[in-house]
């Protein structure tokens, strides 16, 4: 986001920021939900289930992780940002999926701190088609 003289003045004087930006932010959020036709409860349920599935394989930071809808140019995307706590992979509880030896699993996952990738690339972007 860019900063203007006005923003600085507002901060110095302790004034409320101009309302146009608030309007824009609120609209973008509400439209992302309108366009996806997902209720907040369903979105929350989906978020929990996504966490559960990922947590089966790796240790993720549940407090830092977030799943949200973002919208741009009439395209809505499901954006999940799930920071990985430990490099060591968990053994999935349903053991039939883990046929790989532990060493190889370890190599496919990078710990958050030493990640060579910028944070953006850790996100998974899933575009959502409009449902009307």
């Amino acid at each position, binding site marked *: 986001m*860019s*900063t*203007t*003289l*006005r923003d600085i*003045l507002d901060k110095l004087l302790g004034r409320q920021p*101009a*309302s*146009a*930006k608030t*309007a*824009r932010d*609120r*609209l*973008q959020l*509400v*439209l992302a939900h*309108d*366009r996806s036709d997902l209720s907040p409860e369903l979105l929350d349920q989906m978020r929990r289930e996504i966490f559960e599935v990922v947590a089966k394989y790796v240790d993720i930071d549940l407090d830092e992780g977030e799943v949200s809808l973002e919208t741009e*140019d*009439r395209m809505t995307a499901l954006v999940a940002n799930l920071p990985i706590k430990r490099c060591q992979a968990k053994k999935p509880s349903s053991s039939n999926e883990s046929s790989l030896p532990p060493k190889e699993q370890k190599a496919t996952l990078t710990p958050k701190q030493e990640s060579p990738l910028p944070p953006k690339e850790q996100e998974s972007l899933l575009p959502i088609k*409009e449902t*009307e």
Partner: protein
Amino acid sequence: MAPTTRTILICSGKGGVGKTTLTANLGIALARLGVNTVVLDADFGLRNLDLLLGLENRIVYTAQEVLAENCRLDQALVKHKQEPNLSLLPAGNPRMLEWLKPEDMQRIAAMLADQFDYVLIDCPAGIEDGFKNAVAAAKEAIVITTPEVSAVRDADRVIGLLNTHGVKPVQLVLNRVRPKMMANQEMLAADDVTDILALPLLGLVLEDEQVIVSTNRGEPLTLSNSKTPAARAYANIARRLQGEDIPLIDPAKEGLGLRDKMWRLMQTKIF
């Protein structure tokens, strides 16, 4: 028969943002450019286009009687007194016994397309049956909104529905713009609205008290050679529809006093 007839739906979702005013002014402006234009009031429950055009006392028949073959189309069309290139057709009257269906609107729009260069359909507010009827008859659309969160949100819903009905192109008119508030960043900027709705801007209409005066009289602003901001904006929209390349006004340049210049300096991005 006019094979190049443009059938344009004028819609907004939210009520009271200026659909009917735009339809009336655009109809007159197009007629003054010499193109044969008809405005169809698809809002038969609460019709008002006749009132804005000053034709409320001259309506005898409606599209409903034409469809029932109780009268001919030319008997139902009301020609504007000062601007004979413009005709009005109300879809129905509020007391009608049977609601129209989407196929009825398609039939009436096809009949009008045979005789006119432009068919402008004034859409009712909302996204229920009235909207579905009107959208069935439309080929392209103009979505009108104001720079307010509720109007933009409703416009977004309507744009989604227009997409699913295959109506295109869809263009945007931003109404009731207050340059001072925009300069103070207390009103959504035109770019904000076009970015959010992802539509090209066909016109930008400044807030103008003369609009109320003209509706009081039943004489749309574009009828006289009025040079008020809204009158100019409506006339420019008509010329852009006709393919003329007329630049949009920049709301930031509308006020050029010292105060306004100060405000523009204040909103310059410094980092």
